[in-house]
């Protein structure tokens, strides 16, 4: 006599186990971890000494208003646009998603675990950069901490949204890295990663302020200086989240 089967989905214990496994894989992939955590830190270290002595707005230094927002945005963008899509593309290419598809695990749980681990990586990267800036170069925390946290959260959602589009269109892990790198450098260049948006032609600078990288840097800069965050920045980040969710939802495939 058989017993009825309940439609039970894996719960929190399963999600925690999956997050733990994802985190172990990230830690064991040393190269994948070093780039998002160390590259932005090195960029900060090269300019922190002089930037920490230059006051630019509201008594705040260039390190706080320009360099740290740029470093935070780089950490989030590298993890969201390059690392996460390459993991998802690898999962798809290697059949791991297919294998998980014959278990009670849901695709949403796998995406959630990826997102959680990516956020944790980004938090580690930003914390390291912030601690070095605070302890070694005398920087101060953001004037408006709550607003800064909100901007970082929105920037993460926007970058991961962009990363999901990369994961959706990339057929292989290598192509995910290639597309992610191109997207990162295009967004970064338009967002002031190479010397500030002021040095760009006016139309490009304007566009860059609406795109997620430039919007995140500018919004975070405002929060650090204690100024009002421009609506254009928030709209740009919010629109990226919405558009990315729709596009990735249409294009994303598990096999």
């Amino acid at each position: 006599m058989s017993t009825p089967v309940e439609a039970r989905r894996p719960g929190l214990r399963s999600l925690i186990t999956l997050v733990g496994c994802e985190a172990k894989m990230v830690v064991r992939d040393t190269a994948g971890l070093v780039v998002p955590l160390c590259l932005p830190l090195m960029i900060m270290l090269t300019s922190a000494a002089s930037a920490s002595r230059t006051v630019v707005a509201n008594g705040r230094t260039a390190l706080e208003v320009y360099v740290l927002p740029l470093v935070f945005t780089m950490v989030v963008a590298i993890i969201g646009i390059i690392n996460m899509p390459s993991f998802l593309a690898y999962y798809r290419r290697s059949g791991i998603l297919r294998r998980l598809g014959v278990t009670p695990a849901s695709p949403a749980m796998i995406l959630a675990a990826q997102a959680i681990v990516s956020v944790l990586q980004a938090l580690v990267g930003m914390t390291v950069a912030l601690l070095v800036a605070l302890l070694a170069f005398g920087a101060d925390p953001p004037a408006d901490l709550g607003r800064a946290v909100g901007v970082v959260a929105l920037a993460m959602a926007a970058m991961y949204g962009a990363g999901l589009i990369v994961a959706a269109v990339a057929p292989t892990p290598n192509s995910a890295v290639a597309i992610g790198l191109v997207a990162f450098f295009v967004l970064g260049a338009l967002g002031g990663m190479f010397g500030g948006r002021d040095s760009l032609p006016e139309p490009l600078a304007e566009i860059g302020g609406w795109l997620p990288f430039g919007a995140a840097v500018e919004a975070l800069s405002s929060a650090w200086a204690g100024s009002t965050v421009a609506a254009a920045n928030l709209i740009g980040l919010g629109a990226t989240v919405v558009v990315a969710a729709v596009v990735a939802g249409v294009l994303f495939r598990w096999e």
Partner: protein
Amino acid sequence: MNSAEPAVLAEQLAKSYRGTRAVVEVSLRVEVGEAVGVVGANGAGKTTTVEMIAGLRVPEQGRVRVLGLDPRRDRARLRQVLGVQLQQAHLHHALRVGELVDLYRSFYPDPRPTAELLDLVELTEQRRTSFDKLSGGQQQRLSIALAITGRPRVVILDELTTGLDPTARRRMWGTVERLRSEGVSVLLVSHTMEEVERLCDRVAVLDAGRVVALDTPANLVTRAGTSTLDEAFVALTGRQVTEEPA
């Protein structure tokens, strides 16, 4: 779902890939507690058939039920009662054996204990070994362990022992026999006649996407007028069985 339902019921399944008919009106029935083998040459449609039964592919035509459950409509319930070992392992290469077992155990409400699973497939000593450091046979055995982690009532085993040496192959057969003694229904895809003859109550012979024979191994041999199942397969299909999948 009730006790009168067969373990697996596939009726008139059909599937094409880019205009090529991979599976043509395949029907199969596995009773509760029964083991049915599926044999055929490369490209005969074996894997496509079992993937439709497992809910990994959508049939263009026909109907599938596993213990009365529809693989598409009852996905969440089906995953509680169906264990699947795919032809290739497809596991996180950087995770260790014990970590993979713990991960898959977390998906089920009443999983088998880790120690029991590892003991069953003789991987206790490899518990801390990364998946990518395991031999092909060890990877295959781990894949079996993960397929039965949730105490399934039905298991689909696709190319159970392909690539294994004779000793490892016999170990795997022992594992399947143990599952059968627990009342688990088995659908076994194989290239090895000796394997299906030993493990299965009935054998479905597929050729060019169709079931050309479905009977007990002894009846297949009698029907073909041959002395072995290997010869019966050749007589029924006009093809040789190959050991490795394409």
